[in-house]
């Protein structure tokens, strides 16, 4: 579905992504893990058109999409969330969701003047959809709150909620779990699995919570220093020496000595 | 081919004036950029703050002159400068207390502060004219030239003269000293570092025990000093007239932005870019060409890229072009 070939993205002299090549299969939930600063978010940004690559190619279903602007990728069904929540802070949570569906009649200036009836009908449908999503994410009670006033975790949920407003082909989730309550994270995980199974969304998930990754993802890709380090099932990854050294570690050293 | 004369010609008409003007702009732009970096708004009242500081200095200079105090070849105004700075600092601190602080507490959007600073500009504008009037005021004394054009010609026997005014020398010298001091202050003193910290992350500065009001106050004092020094140097080199100071605002902003808002180094670079672009683009190269080319190839036309009508426009074209290729200015600035 997505193929990345020898991708480079440099910041000044620094090689954030340094020749990454990987593939995300259609219908999979692919995990992307790696140490802080491995270049995962940068890779996402390049794929999603937010940053131009220094060199290399990205293909979607065999079509070269390298460097296309984000809104065109969105139209092709490629969606993403941000690691640091990018909410529309002065709009209400519901409006944050309602603005997502593309090509709304009322988004055309001319129509906004002369197509009031049609717009009103469309709005009604979009609002219902938004309310469903809010319900699903358990944040209905803040629907009319300004998104900027949400707590850190709620913002993350909103990020995810936006991708649920449209039919996507592939969704890139950048650390939806960071700062999200584990119980809720499990619910999110369920939702991802359901979207994957029922609607056939493909997911690529960056996450540091190995339980979450383990439950959802197959395969898992490990990145380090801007390159792919390993790929495989969660078990393969967990037992990979290199991965343990660079990323997973061996657990708490002092654990036993803590009194309680 | 007459390289020596060409060089002197260019030095006299391009380099010396542009370096002087550039230093004046740079000092002004430093003030604007500091406010922007630390208090996060574009201060439209800066031109009038400069006028105010200069006015106080002028008044004190006159008083000193009437007492017969003089520094010999150095302008008396330098002696009055500390008074000017002190009074101006008092004024801006008071303004901050009664005006800006309210919006800072409210965490108002920068554009609101910009408009508020326009209100302050109007008030200061009226205040200065109210006290000293709208006229030209002369307060320069001391030696006029370090070297005059005629002297230079006699000394070197060249066809072209080179003049350097005392005020020009003073301007550049002061600018260098002030900039060096400022850098040292920001990078190596505790207060300077706390200012940078505040500008970087206001809330975290609070959590580190930095007193924001103190940072703000210090910033205003430095800005007042920069504004007064810039204004006085400008006044010594040209003349003091409130309206011109108001008009200075535009090139000062241009300098600050071309260099990258919030970046002190950028402000300096920006000042020189603006000054040099104004002078060079509209320069008529005819005379230089006449020196450099054989006599029979001497040009008829002025060899002017653009008429001086467009001098101001040209400096803005340069500015726009710089921004298009380096969208945050020469030295990566901030953006609100």
């Amino acid at each position, binding site marked *: 579905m997505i193929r990345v070939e020898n991708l480079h993205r440099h910041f000044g002299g620094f090689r954030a992504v340094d020749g990454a090549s990987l593939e995300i299969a259609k219908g999979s939930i692919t995990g992307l893990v790696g140490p802080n600063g491995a270049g995962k978010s940068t890779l996402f940004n390049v794929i999603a058109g937010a940053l131009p690559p220094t060199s290399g190619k990205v293909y979607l279903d065999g079509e070269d999409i390298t460097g296309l602007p984000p809104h065109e990728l969105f139209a092709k069904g490629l969606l993403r969330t941000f690691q640091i929540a990018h909410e529309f802070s002065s709009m209400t949570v519901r409006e944050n969701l309602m603005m997502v569906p593309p090509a709304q009649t009322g988004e055309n200036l001319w129509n906004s003047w002369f197509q009031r009836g049609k717009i009103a009908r469309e709005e009604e449908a979009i609002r219902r959809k938004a309310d469903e999503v809010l319900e699903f994410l358990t944040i209905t009670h803040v629907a009319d709150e300004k998104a900027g006033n949400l707590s850190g975790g709620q913002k993350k949920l909103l990020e995810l909620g936006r991708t649920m407003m449209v039919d996507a082909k592939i969704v890139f989730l950048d650390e939806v779990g960071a700062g999200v309550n584990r119980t809720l994270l499990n619910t999110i995980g369920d939702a991802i699995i359901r979207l994957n199974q029922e609607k056939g969304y493909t997911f690529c998930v960056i996450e540091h919570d190995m339980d979450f990754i383990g439950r959802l993802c197959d395969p898992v890709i490990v990145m380090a220093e801007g390159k792919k380090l390993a790929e495989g099932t969660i078990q393969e990854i967990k037992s990979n020496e290199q991965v343990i050294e660079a990323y997973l570690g061996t657990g708490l050293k002092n654990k036993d000595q803590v009194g309680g | 081919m007459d390289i020596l004369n060409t060089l002197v010609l260019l030095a*006299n*008409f*391009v380099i*010396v*004036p*542009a370096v002087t*003007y550039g230093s*004046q*702009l740079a000092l002004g732009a430093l003030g604007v950029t500091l406010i922007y970096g630390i208090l996060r708004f574009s201060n439209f009242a800066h031109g009038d703050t400069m006028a105010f500081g200069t006015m106080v200095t002028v008044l004190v200079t006159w008083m000193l002159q009437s007492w017969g105090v003089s520094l010999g070849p150095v302008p008396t105004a330098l002696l009055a400068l500390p008074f000017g700075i002190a009074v101006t600092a008092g004024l801006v601190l008071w303004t901050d207390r009664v005006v800006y602080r309210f919006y800072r507490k409210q965490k108002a959007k920068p554009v609101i502060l910009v408009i508020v600073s326009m209100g302050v500009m109007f008030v200061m504008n009226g205040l200065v*004219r109210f006290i000293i*009037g*709208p*006229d*030209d005021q*002369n307060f320069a004394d001391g030696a006029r030239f370090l070297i*005059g*054009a*005629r002297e230079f010609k006699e000394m070197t026997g060249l066809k072209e*003269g080179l*003049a350097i*005014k005392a005020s020009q020398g003073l301007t550049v010298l002061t600018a260098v000293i002030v900039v060096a001091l400022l850098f040292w202050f920001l990078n190596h003193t505790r207060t300077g570092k706390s200012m940078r910290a505040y500008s970087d992350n206001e809330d975290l500065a609070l959590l580190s025990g930095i007193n924001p009001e103190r940072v703000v106050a210090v910033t205003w004092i430095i800005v007042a000093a920069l504004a007064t020094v810039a204004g006085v140097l*400008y006044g010594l080199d*040209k*003349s003091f*007239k409130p*309206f*011109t100071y108001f*008009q*200075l605002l535009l*090139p000062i902003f241009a300098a600050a932005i071309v260099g990258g808002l919030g970046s002190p180094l950028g402000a300096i670079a920006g000042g020189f870019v603006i*000054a040099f672009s*104004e*002078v060079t683009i*509209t*320069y*008529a*190269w*005819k*005379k*230089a060409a006449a020196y450099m080319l054989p006599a029979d190839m001497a040009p008829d036309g*002025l060899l*002017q890229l653009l*008429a*001086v*009508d467009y*001098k*101001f426009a040209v400096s803005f074209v340069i500015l726009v072009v710089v921004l298009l290729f380096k969208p945050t200015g020469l030295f990566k600035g901030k953006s609100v």
Partner: protein
Amino acid sequence: ASHGETVKMGIILGFTGPIESLTPAMADSAELALKEINAAGGILGGKMIEAVRADSTCVDAAGATAAAERLITSDGVAAIMGADCSGVTGAILTNVAVPNGIVMVSPSATSPGLSTVEDNGLFFRTAPSDARQGVVLSDMLNDKGIKEVAVTYTNNDYGKGLSDSFIAAYEAAGGKVTINAPHEDGKADYSAEVAALAAAGGEVLVVLGYTDQGGRGIIQGSLDTGAFETFMLGDGMYGDQLVADLGDAMEGSFGAVPWAEGEGTTAFATMAVDANINPEGAYTRESYDAAALIALAMAAGGEATSAAAAAKMLDVANAPGEKILPGQLGKALEILAAGGDIDYVGATNVELIGPGEAAGTYRDYIITGGAYETESIR
């Protein structure tokens, strides 16, 4: 007309904005004339004239219009002395003065374009149109045998118009203009202009600007860099401050300024000095004359209205009649009251021609020993 009534006269000048440093003296001179008239017992049997000032801003047409609107319709002025800059003058004239039938006498709007504005006979000016000055300046250069000059002018209708007419006259007379470069007033730095002028070269630099504006900046820059040593100055450059500030360096520079021969100017100078006004400031004389003319024309018309003033303006200003100098306004009023005829000479030797403009005499001067020495009168 009973004793004790007052007539209001609007004085609309740019008290804020680019020429804010010139206007206070102009307004003071105008009020000097009115004081003199009031001291002589007012016009038309005891009507005192009261001045009402308003701000034309010099640059904001809409603001000036609003101010004039207020002067006329709210303060009820009978006539306007002003405005100053040609742009706002035009706006006030067409939008407010003509519709309301109010007479305007501008002391300083010199743009030739104003000559053809549909003014319904209501617009006059005491400053000569620039067309004539161009010829005067050109003649001066020819007399001195100067064949090549560089020109800089202030970039507004005054400067541009003057430079156009000067260059036309000078080139027709065989002179060569190496460069004709404008400068903006009130700017921070004039190095670029000076550099371009210097590179173009010329025996003298012709400066057609204002004495406390860009014109002065250019001269200072030229002197500092040694680009030019001699300057020819247009009328806007005339002023003691310039010589005082720049000192010896101005020695030998020369220029022309609208002038009245002897008496009128001298009379005005004495009066102005007494009143603490610089008699040689730009347009101070013209301002005095403008205000005096309006009052005298009303007196001649027998009615304190614009219509009366407009009808009599040319009569009062031009021959025949008894010559009136500054300080003799009382005498003039007496003559008029007795049904006599006057020829107002004033501080600038006023002579209104054609569409109500001053014909203008000019004084050629040269700066010697830090003072203006008259060379000749044209």
